[in-house]
């Protein structure tokens, strides 16, 4: 696979930034635009950048855990958060609040919605990793096998000719038979 230097370098800068941004979305989601879902999607966008530059191997290197582990872990956290209040005798998903006063940062408030959101975040990331694993895992020879069944267009007009003038695949297949 050919690699583009410009893409490589920019992804090196962009990837950590987008991951940080996604974490920001995740943690600020309760009071500002964001949340676990958006955060997870942003992180997934970062992952897809990695994929575009380095293929599936690059994605695998950036996440040591297997996609299904991340998926399962995320779901477990969310469901655990939902069920935990029931074990204490409360209603499902009943929320609690924790207020901390660390010395420098001032007041930090965390609700029990946060672990739930973290779970959602992980599930989204896991899903995208899984799809890359499923459809993105290819060897070069496989790509070679995939060929356009239509002949390459020789002009812009041919490229965007109307549907009715388009020759069906059967015609093309016949042409190929003739040529071989």
């Amino acid at each position: 696979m050919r690699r583009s230097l410009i893409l490589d370098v920019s992804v090196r800068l962009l990837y950590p930034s987008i991951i940080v941004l996604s974490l920001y979305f995740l943690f600020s989601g309760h009071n500002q635009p964001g949340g676990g879902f958006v955060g997870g999607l942003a992180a997934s966008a970062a992952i897809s950048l990695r994929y575009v530059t380095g293929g599936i191997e690059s994605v695998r290197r950036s996440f040591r855990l297997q996609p299904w582990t991340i998926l399962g872990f995320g779901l477990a956290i969310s469901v655990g958060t939902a069920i935990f209040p029931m074990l204490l005798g409360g209603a499902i998903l009943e929320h609690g609040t924790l207020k901390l006063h660390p010395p420098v940062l001032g007041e930090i408030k965390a609700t029990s919605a946060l672990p739930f959101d973290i779970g959602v975040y992980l599930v989204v990331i896991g899903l995208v990793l899984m799809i890359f694993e499923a459809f993105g895992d290819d060897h070069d020879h496989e790509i070679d096998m995939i060929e356009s069944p239509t002949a390459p267009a020789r002009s812009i007009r041919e490229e965007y000719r109307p549907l009715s003038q388009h020759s069906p695949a059967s015609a093309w297949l016949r042409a190929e038979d003739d040529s071989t």
Partner: protein
Amino acid sequence: MIVLLLIHLLIGSAILLSGDRWGRRAFAVAAVAPLATLLWVAARWSTIIGDPGVLDDEGHGSGGDAVFETVGWIGGLDLDLTLRFDAFSLVMTLLVSGIGLLVCIYAIGYFSHILPGQSRLAGLMTLFAGSMLGVVWADHLIALFIAWELTSITSYLLIGNDDRNPRARSAALQAIFITGGGGLALLLGLIIIGQSAGTYRLSEMVDSPPSGGAVGAALVCILLGAFTKSAQAPFGSWLPGAMVAPTPISTYLHSATMVKAGVYLVARLSPIVATIGDWRALVLVVGSFTMIIGGLRAMRQRDLKLLLAYGTMSQLGFMMLLVGTGEYKIAQAGIVLLLAHGAFKATLFMLVGVIDHQVGTRHIRELHGFGDGWLPVKAMAVIGAASMAGLPPLLGFVAKEKAIDTYLEYGDFTGADATIVVIVVGSILTFAYSARFVLGVFGVHGSTDNEVRSRAAPAPAWLFVAPAAVLTVLTVLLGVFPAIISDLTESALLALDPSSTPSTVKLWSGFNTAFVLSLMIIVIGTLLTVFRRPVARVQTAAAQPLRRLPTTDGSFGFIIRAIDAVARHVTRVVQNGSLPTYLLVIISTAVLIPVIPMIAEFDRLPQWVESPIQIPIVAIIIGSSIGAALIHRRIAAIVMLGAVGFAMAALYEAQGAPDLALTQFAIETLGTVLFVLVLRFLPTRFVDLAPAVVRPIRLAVSVMVGAAIFVFAIVSTNARSDVAEESISTEMVERAKPDGEGKNVVNVILVDFRGVDTMGEITVLLVAAVGAAALARGSRQYDREPEVERTEEPVA
């Protein structure tokens, strides 16, 4: 009672889980369950039976009190597991647990050579016993149905236990198809009568019988269930097939208990519904046919076990004739017959098993009589067969006398006289096949072609024959002193029909018509036995034209094959593998069904433009959508779709929903990337191979979808105005900060107010991810197989 059922479940599962570790000792463990039940019954005996002989002022007797037990199940549907234990249940429980206990002991002797999967029989048998107790104890019709089906399933597993034997497998399959099909009809019937009676409780239905137009059809459905279960003609073909099961199983399920479930149900319902619709006529016709056909076929059998199986069919028909009329006097004879049949048929089955086990055959041509030490077996065979034939002074005689007597005296409904003739003829046939059984055991039918093995066969161990001996003693004892069971049957009758006045059960009720008929039965039966060769010739000749008719086995096979063929055909049409067709069907359904009611609500159009910025955004959306539909290159189409998505995000932003816009933006980006990922596996251009007629259809569907979404959007936004609360979003916004501890209302809704929804959604995400991975892997492995080398670039 529920505890006893749980004991059955526990012991049964324990034996199943332990595999073959316990060997035949598993049957000793299994015996604990019926033993516990019998002890429990004994403790309540006097309460349940009461004193039916004492009459009140109006001349009505009163039985004992029933024991009720209710376990809440699905409260919202008024479905409770209500158990009721009255005197009639007691009669059935005696059969189920009494014979169950004896069969367990018998099985220890029968399974002396350990084969794999034998202990499983003990476990399944215990589970079956529990289900059968469920049938006879259930007061709620739905609980009864579930127990009923459980008996069918355990019966299937027991018949097919020898899973390497194709005959066992097909017999099991046939049994569960027929009884299961009847079970479905039964469920339908039970629901209809439950709804029309206003109660699903059998004990309450006596006071509020079902009424209404559908009840007649419901009763036919119920009878269908009962007839299939009790192997009535023409559904009886599974019972002889079920004889491939080991003899203890046949003894227990297919003679003593399970096949009586249908009789039990008919007996329970007859006092309530006998006069409604065609109940009585159906019972009489089907019962008569079964009694005669079963008797005739039993006379032709050479396998002793099959002889008994057809005999059982015949006797079950007899029982139907007795309990299904709704005349309580006749029903009492039916109760006596239930007990008598349980005793003698179990005995005979056990003895056939003993012979089979010791000699290695049960074919009457291969039996040549037995040597020393076999006297007890021969004596018991004679007594059992005599009881079956209805010879005095045995319990079978008592039952048949009472049956004929009560039919003569109280049979004042249409068809009663014909039924008496049927009973007499059936009894003559019963006498004939009983005699054939005895002669077979004594070796009279033995042919010289076969090696004389039976004379040298070792006599069975005492424990092996002890259960049969117990039943034989009961047959004689209860026959001579029927007073012992008189109270039991009277109370059982009162439990069935509280308004009845039962009579005592007697051995000798005087020199009456019934006795004359009994004498006639014995005389003609003896003649049939003496002239058995000419009779057999006549029977064969008479059966010749009948051979042209399809047999029940044949029709069953035909029906199964026909269902297979139809299923294949339907699958070929419905699941033709064309993705466009599937999509067409799914989309049209999804669009048409909700939209039709919506069009009625479609009254006013909203304001088209709210702010100028919307105009360019919408222009982009419309332009890109049309472009996506027209472009041939896939990648270009996806870019167009992406443009639609990003424009939507801009629209959200313009409407003041940054959260939504952010999500839309992220999804659109990711979606495009993933699309491209999959796209590499597809041709770069859309290729349309479909015939020209398809295009207008597709166009129509697409336009329809667009129109439907348009209508949907407008109607659903307008629908808000009808709701009393102006907008629930106001409430959400107000509650977000105090209740959800968050300023971002959307997120508070996602993780708190509607958190459970989100949880469900991420679960769906997970399932989708796993599904996508499996699909991709599976299909690519398929792709990899044809390793075609392509050497040449296609040139146009």
